[in-house]
């Protein structure tokens, strides 16, 4: 997934001289080629998430399109106030890319987990939130955010995770149906997509069928699909590598609670 991000970004930077990428000293063995290719438009700002978020805003206020990369817990939580005030409220063209999100850094413990990042980014005005489930969704998300002029958060998880789709997805803004069934509807976001797919396959072998939707964009959410499913299905299940509070679980519940669905 990270490779897909990198390839997409490199292609965009080749096509568009207005793009600048900054990293708060993350991306060892990832960004070296980009650094060589774009010596002025790739900047390592050092281990400075707070000022880097403001620098991203300063670059965007000067008319540049900014991709800001660092590890998910640090780029969303340590500099939350800078992201809130300088990037989100000003509605700037900055894409925040949180690497190693969820439980990705599982051996490193809570310091490196990002289980609250979706919740925090969802809160902010103008911010769109994406959690691609494989490299194909990642390519789709990159294409989509490139066209945006407002802030986005992309949650990146596993490197080398399985590829779910055989061909590009047509839209990342609508829930993508992978299975259609009778027992329940499952919404999954992010890196657990391949796991959810396997669950659906295993259940199918036992003659239990479920509907499975991938949700690459959590904010704004595809409310239409959620409400349609909530009306026809007794059980709605969400899967994510994030706290339910503030995450996809909350987001789906909010849509259903605000409607008349029984």
């Amino acid at each position: 997934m990270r490779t897909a991000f990198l390839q997409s970004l490199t292609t965009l930077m080749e096509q568009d001289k207005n793009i600048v990428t900054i990293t708060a000293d993350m991306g060892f063995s990832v960004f070296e080629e980009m650094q060589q290719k774009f010596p002025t438009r790739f900047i390592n700002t050092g281990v400075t998430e707070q000022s880097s978020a403001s620098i991203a805003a300063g670059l965007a206020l000067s008319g540049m399109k900014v991709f800001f990369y660092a590890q998910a817990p640090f780029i969303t939580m340590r500099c939350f106030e800078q992201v809130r005030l300088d990037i989100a409220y000003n509605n700037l063209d900055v894409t925040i890319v949180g690497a190693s999100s969820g439980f990705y850094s599982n051996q490193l413990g809570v310091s490196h987990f990002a289980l609250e990042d979706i919740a925090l980014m969802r809160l902010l005005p103008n911010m769109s939130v994406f959690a691609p489930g494989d490299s194909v969704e990642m390519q789709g998300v990159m294409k989509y955010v490139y066209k945006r002029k407002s802030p986005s958060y992309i949650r990146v998880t596993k490197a080398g995770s399985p590829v779910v789709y055989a061909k590009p997805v047509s839209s990342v803004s609508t829930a993508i149906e992978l299975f259609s069934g009778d027992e329940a509807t499952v919404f999954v976001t992010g890196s657990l997509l391949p796991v959810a797919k396997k669950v659906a396959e295993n259940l199918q072998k036992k003659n239990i069928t479920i509907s499975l939707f991938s949700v690459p964009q959590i904010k704004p959410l595809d409310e239409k699909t959620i409400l349609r499913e909530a009306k026809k299905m007794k059980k709605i299940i969400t899967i994510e590598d994030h706290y339910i509070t503030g995450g996809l679980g909350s987001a789906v519940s909010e849509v259903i609670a605000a409607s008349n669905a029984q």
Partner: protein
Amino acid sequence: MKKQEIQKLEKKAVILRKKILSMITKANASHIGSAYSCLELLIFLYSYVLKIYPKNPFNKNRDRFILSKGWAISALFSVLEDKKIISQKDLENYCLDGSKLIGCATYNGIAGIEATTGSMGHGLPIGVGMALAAKIQNKKYKIVVLISDGECDEGSTWEAILQAGHHKLNNLLVIIDYNKLQSFGKVKDILDLEPLSAKWKAFKWNVLETNGNSFKDLSKTFKKITFKNKPTVIIAHTTKGKGVSIFENRNEWHYKTPKSKELEIAEKELII
């Protein structure tokens, strides 16, 4: 600078202090001490340093000025109005319901406001981002950021100082409004910044010092800026509440609105 020119600027400062007093009292607003502290700096910047286009204030080649101490915005608005960048009518509605002129610098489309500030330690790194953008885009305009001494407590400020020095951002000028008072009391008692000049020098900056309330001193100091090789910081020694005896060096004027007797004294002292 000629004596006559200095006298003209000093007269301007009194007029604008009076204007700020009226804006703040009308809106029952705060931070008059902060506004008075940096007024000479703002007048000087807008008269001699910043390349501005009053008839086309969003001109892409304008110098970018960020008031990082966004709570002193009444002073900046008074100068912007004096330069005919914002209207007198807008100024009269400062901080009143429905006005776009908010009591802390807010990036909401008003000419002359380049960033939302007031949460401390944001303005300088935003300025660093703008300076980097100007370098990447090969633009000749400069970026000037006015920060408070209190903001020098913030880690993000020091991150940005480190970054600007490292990237040799010679298109960046920072001015510290060093009035030696922060929110709770004296800087030297709360979190001492000294030796301040040595700290910035160690971070690879050109450092100049001046009396920030003296046009004569400001004129001499600004002549020394070369904009070569390094970013420049001017440590401007100022007096909080400058210009009105009962406001000077008293922290309560970070918060209070002058009323009755205080207002009378202020009005009496602000006569040309």
